[in-house]
């Protein structure tokens, strides 16, 4: 990807954060932040166009539900379930039961 050098002015606290990044990582830090913000603005604008209201409370509740589920599903649980299904299908034991994850 082509990259361009740009000069921007930022508040002191932002400058300090960028300076604290590992060597060569400040640009990646800014890039990630800009893309994340842009994606959010894109989504919010689309919902405004559609007339679908987004509420802070609703999103906070949705995040709490997702994070709770994520706490119950560490990476090891996903891997264990995939491995168990692979073993089942290799053994011809696809018995249409959800394996205990």
């Amino acid at each position, binding site marked *: 990807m082509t990259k361009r050098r740009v000069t921007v002015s930022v508040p002191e606290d932002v400058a300090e954060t960028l300076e604290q990044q590992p060597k060569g990582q400040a640009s990646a830090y800014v890039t*990630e932040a800009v893309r994340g913000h842009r994606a959010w603005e894109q989504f919010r604008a689309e919902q405004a166009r559609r007339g679908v209201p987004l509420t802070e409370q609703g*999103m906070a509740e949705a995040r709490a539900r997702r994070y709770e589920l994520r706490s119950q599903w560490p990476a090891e649980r996903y891997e264990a379930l995939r491995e168990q299904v692979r073993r089942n299908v290799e053994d011809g034991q696809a018995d249409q039961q959800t394996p205990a*994850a």
Partner: protein
Amino acid sequence: MSWRDEERPPVTLLLDRSAALGYLAGSIHVTEPVGEVINDRQRFGITAVTVAEVLELATDPKDRDDLHVLLRMESCAVLPTWGEDWQELGYWRGLTGRADLATTVIAALEHRASILTGEGHRYGEGLPVIDLPE
């Protein structure tokens, strides 16, 4: 957009057919969970097979336009189902009763993501499912 794959945020939420249709219907119970994922600097996903199913069911041109806009968002990942996964696909097809749901399960396990659905009963127990309110 020209992100390289390794730069892309993780996919942490999968929309199945019912969730995608809920989005098109303007359900806040779908839009807010998707919004919070994006606001959390992550991506949501939908399998290509699910997209095909939704396109078949969404006959209103406005809904189809909204779906196209959703799929073009940089925070949306349209996910493949790989040929090498045919055995697992068959397993989950048998369990869920539908191929599109099977692709959603496989994608959720691959990405370690949760499934947003209005058809939680189809997945049985023991999968990372977030149920939409009835």
